[in-house]
């Protein structure tokens, strides 16, 4: 069992977490969004081999956060509360 760091609860079992998509995938704003831009936002993914910045949710506390992870070794590089581009 791998441990993931929740920025609010500390290290917890991987099974308590759920993947939420690429970090930085911001919903397009406004009424005149072209179809390709919507398709890009809804479906296209970076899916990197190596270092990835991802949104995760810790299902026990319900908090979303950003985790940097290596998708080959599964090593966690950093974990931080949402901010900046994703600030509410």
């Amino acid at each position, binding site marked *: *069992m*791998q441990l993931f760091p929740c920025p609010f609860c500390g290290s917890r*079992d*991987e*099974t308590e977490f*759920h*993947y939420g998509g690429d970090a930085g995938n911001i919903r397009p704003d406004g009424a005149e969004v072209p*179809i*390709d831009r*919507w*398709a*890009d936002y*809804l*479906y*296209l*993914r*970076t*899916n*990197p*081999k*190596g270092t*990835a910045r*991802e949104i995760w949710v810790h299902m026990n506390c319900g908090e979303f956060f950003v985790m940097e992870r290596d*998708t*080959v*070794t*599964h090593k966690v590089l950093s974990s931080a509360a949402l901010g900046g581009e994703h600030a509410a």
Partner: protein
Amino acid sequence: MTTRYSALSLFREGLAGQTGWQPAWRSPEPKPSYDAIVIGGGGHGLATAYYLAKNQNIARVAVLEKGWIGGGNTGRNTTVVRSNYYYPESVELYGLAHRLYEGLSKDLNYNVMLSQRGMVNLCHSTAEMEIGARTVNAMQINGIDAELFSPEDVRRVAPIYNFSPDARFPVFGGIWQGRAGTARHDAVAWGYARAASRLGVDIIQNCEITDFIIEGGRCRGVQTSRGAIRAERIGMAVAGHSSVLAAKAGFRLPINSYALQACVSEPVKPILDTVVLSPGCGVYVSQSDKGEIVIGGGLDRIPSYAQRGNLPTLETVIAGVLEMFPIFGQLKLMRQWAGIVDVVPDSSPIIGESPLPGLFLNCGWGTGGFKAIPAGGTLLANLLATGKHNDISRPFDLDRFATGRLIDEAAGSGIAH
């Protein structure tokens, strides 16, 4: 020199001391250019090359494989062949694959050991039986064999299932496809490789793509670990790593890569002569010709390129197996492994030209690419030869994510992914 496999050639070679056998495929040095290049030496890539040579009369073809052929998902799946899908588009696609599988051993002169032992998708409640009846009706209307099974029918084909009154997932019936079954996965790769090689296709292993040659906005070749190789038409069938190559070509795909695990027990005497899938347990089980119990389940839910599984998913799968078949409690697990699969939002593959002209895609098969190998190869070969879709491949074009014409086969994939 023996090139064709038959009872007679086996007999002759027996008399000749087994000295005339040839390697099943040639391993030539790559040429500087070809009419078409296929990236990826798995089942889909090798099948593409074979059908290019056989159906499209294009034999100056190279298959470029970064490791060894059949060493990715083709060698890591659970060998199930079936076509029990819901939508007409999917039935056309998987039905084509299923029919080609039925004639494949003869077509390739290579025994792929197709065993049409039937498959039952169990229904665990009255509501699931209603959905099961709807699925069976849809399949029959679309021209695919399917039958709605009663609990007695299920008991007849899988008597060792857990029918006890306190079973967590009781049997209300099931969806039966009698033509479904298993095939020897390595043989599919080797058979296509041998048949393609005999038609003149160059199979080049240990040849990794490092970059695409892009001139005038078109893909005109690839840079590889064994030098530049040029072609006007390039196909890629590299499930698990589709996004990695797409990034080199300058576009993104609607794909996330996940690990899908499987495992086998020690070999035992014949005890299960069909494929049984329990949606409740999230597990499907069959027995290989060697006697191993072959076990597959759901995805590891962590995006990954590591070709190994995580323990929590394996634990869930094993718990499911024991719920389905308590008799397997004494079995020892012999091997466990994982492959990296392309997961697409609508659980349907992507077949068509990529955003980079000249580069064609065969990817996004999710957890079920093995069963589709003959169709994936036929359709990519058609695209490479003609540059155009046919009626079967058209609905699976990448443009469906912009037009919204998704083909949501989440249920057809069998296990909730």
